[in-house]
């Protein structure tokens, strides 16, 4: 069965219908955008932050900012419950929640004179909610850093052929930066130079791997590679952004974008390619939808290693269905550049629907692998699956498979590193902002120390090996942020005497689901404190996957490092839960006051 084409085709049709019927209906009947109203981009035009930008440019900007590792990695966790629930969540999540969240974030900013998330939250709800939200975002940033650092380290170790291309792409980006900014050389030439480095890297990595010179990588601890990724990130977080992070991200954009296009086109063409190039006997086989077994009659709705389908599935697939990150993009950048109010739907809503298509294509990459060939760490299957889908487009030659595997593994590492490079900067700014004039404030105001603190925290968390659960914590906080944004949207709408059900129902669903997920995850981490249970959990991957530093220590009887780290993560989950409750309570109170309520900022 050509699953990729079915997944992407169905997604494409449903999302087009969703855009033309449901999204346009909500757009007209709730927000009623008016193209004659001046947007903040016109009102406050400064040629920098506020600048009317054409919707095609802004669509590209929004899509690039939201489509990263989330829609590609998220589906694999959800697949432990079978592909049907994952498929349905991507469809319904994007259709009823995802697009409206992104669109609401942009429209609130446009209708609030270009204010960002924090000031809008203060004005609509109060100062306590704003502080809660900012605190929430700090923990969220830490989780993003930890989870992306782990992904990077795990891919370096599992696909040693991708180490050299990743490093050479970064070097190429650095050189392109020198060419562009120091030597003032044309950007096209600088881009070509950067891409040449990447191509040389792929060839070199592949060759070294094929002759066995990279075999030693498999025997090394994963922490080495997480450390390597974070060293690269430290440069990006501390050097001038035009010297490192920006040109590296620019050069990395090209292979990452090519991967997205290859994946979507390959999936759509899969029926044709399967007929033309019967490359592999396992081509286009689906993972089974797990039936109940004697030992676990609750399958696929509950698994010992992963927990219950609700709420876990809904936080596992993050950006592919809905993501709080998108509201940060929409409010801090896109909303300030919108040329016309009527552009909000194609830019914000359209980008999200397109991301839904990408999530479908990414999911299909996991289901084309024969069950027998699936590696236990499921997220590591993506490059293999993506290569199977796209191999036919290159004539199905024998060499194209290994090249594509190296390419897709490199792309995932680049996605992780490009996001990671910016995270310690945001973390430092957020921590400095919140610490105010306290004694620890100078630490975060120093860029070297502030970035180092963020990176060390990320390393410690990633070293637990509890990647799966950190991803769920990240997903929980990410989706909760989205739920809180939808709640803010509902408060805004009721203040303006507009219907709120289209935002309020998704907000309630997301907030309740994410809070349940955070409570579940805090319980998972707290259980490791029960004497004698850590070792019992380790072999099943319950908390720490085998081979991680702390799991090895725990196996050797040294429990305190593992318990300290899992204790910190349980604490983090509980803090996120409390902050989420706090912001939700204040926002709900503001919503209940209705249209006539006055803004009453809670006393500091």
């Amino acid at each position, binding site marked *: 069965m050509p699953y990729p084409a079915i997944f992407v085709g169905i997604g494409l049709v449903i999302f087009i219908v969703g855009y033309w019927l449901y999204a346009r209906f909500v757009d007209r009947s709730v927000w009623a955008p008016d193209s*004659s109203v*001046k947007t903040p981009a*016109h009102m*406050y*035009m*400064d*040629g*920098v*932050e506020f600048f*009317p*930008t*054409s919707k*095609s*440019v*802004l*669509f*590209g*900007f*929004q*899509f*690039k*900012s939201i489509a990263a590792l989330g829609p590609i990695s998220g589906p694999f966790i959800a697949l432990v419950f079978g592909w049907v629930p994952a498929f349905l969540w991507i469809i319904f999540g994007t259709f009823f929640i995802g697009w409206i969240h992104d669109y609401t974030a942009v429209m609130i900013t446009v209708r609030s004179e270009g*204010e*960002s*998330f*924090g*000031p809008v939250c203060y004005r609509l709800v109060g100062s306590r909610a704003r502080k809660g939200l*900012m605190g929430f*975002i700090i923990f969220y940033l830490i989780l993003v850093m930890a989870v992306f650092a782990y992904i990077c380290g795990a891919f370096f170790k599992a696909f040693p052929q991708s180490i050299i291309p990743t490093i050479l792409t970064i070097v190429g980006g650095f050189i392109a930066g020198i060419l562009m900014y120091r030597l003032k050389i044309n950007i096209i030439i600088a881009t070509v130079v950067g891409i040449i480095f990447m191509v040389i890297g792929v060839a070199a990595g592949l060759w070294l791997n094929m002759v066995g010179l990279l075999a030693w990588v498999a025997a090394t601890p994963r922490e080495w590679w997480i450390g390597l990724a974070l060293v690269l990130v430290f440069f990006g977080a501390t050097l001038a*952004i*035009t010297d490192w992070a*920006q040109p590296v*991200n*620019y050069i990395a*954009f*090209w292979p990452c*974008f090519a991967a997205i296009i290859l994946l979507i086109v390959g999936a759509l063409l899969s029926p044709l390619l399967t007929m033309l190039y019967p490359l592999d006997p396992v081509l286009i086989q689906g993972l089974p939808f797990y039936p109940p077994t004697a030992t676990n009659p609750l399958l696929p709705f509950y698994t010992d290693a992963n927990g219950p389908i609700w709420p876990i599935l809904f936080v596992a697939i993050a950006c592919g269905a809905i993501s709080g990150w998108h509201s*940060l*993009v929409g*409010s*801090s*950048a896109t909303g300030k550049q919108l*040329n016309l109010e009527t552009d909000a739907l194609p830019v914000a809503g359209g980008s999200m629907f397109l991301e839904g298509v990408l999530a479908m294509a990414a999911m299909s990459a996991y289901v084309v692998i024969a069950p027998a060939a699936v590696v236990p760490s499921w997220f590591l299957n993506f490059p293999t699956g993506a290569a199977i889908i796209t191999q036919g487009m290159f004539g199905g030659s024998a060499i194209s498979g290994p090249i594509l595997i190296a390419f897709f593994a490199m792309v995932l590492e680049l996605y992780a590193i490009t996001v990671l490079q910016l995270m310690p900067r*945001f973390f430092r*700014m*957020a921590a400095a*902002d919140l610490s105010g004039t306290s004694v620890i404030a100078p630490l975060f105001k120093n860029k070297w120390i502030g970035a180092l603190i963020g990176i060390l925290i990320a390393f410690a968390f990633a070293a637990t090996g509890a990647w799966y659960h950190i991803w769920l914590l990240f997903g929980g906080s990410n989706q909760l942020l989205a739920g809180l944004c939808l709640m803010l949207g509902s408060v805004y709408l009721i203040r303006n005497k507009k219907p709120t059900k289209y935002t309020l129902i998704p907000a309630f669903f997301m907030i309740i689901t994410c809070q349940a997920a955070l409570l579940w995850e805090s319980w998972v981490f707290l259980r490791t404190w029960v004497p004698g249970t850590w070792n019992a959990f380790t072999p099943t991957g319950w908390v720490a996957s085998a081979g991680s530093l702390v799991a090895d220590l725990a196996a050797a009887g040294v429990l305190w490092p593992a318990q300290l780290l899992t204790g910190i993560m349980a604490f983090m989950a509980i803090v996120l839960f409390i902050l989420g409750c706090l912001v939700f309570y204040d926002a709900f109170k503001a919503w209940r006051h209705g249209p006539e309520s006055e803004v009453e900022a809670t006393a500091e």
Partner: protein
Amino acid sequence: MSPEDEKDAPEEKGSVKGTVKDFFYGMAMQGMVRYALKTRMYLEHLFMLITLGDMLGIPILPPYYSLKLLPYAVPNIKTWKRTLFKERDFTDALF
């Protein structure tokens, strides 16, 4: 919209080629260009704060020199004041 605003609005190319070009520009370059412009804006605003700080009650330079620089700064004063007084938090720095 007034004619002035229409002048500010970007040119609508309309053609498929133009749309695709804009889409690629948005994906690849828009973030970089905004960052470069933001950097210039911060430096210019810093310069204006040093030279024309007395407008905001911060007398740094003797008024004579401020007066000499004033004609060059006049076009940006409104934007400068608005940006300086605007409420911000770190989410503004994300993109």
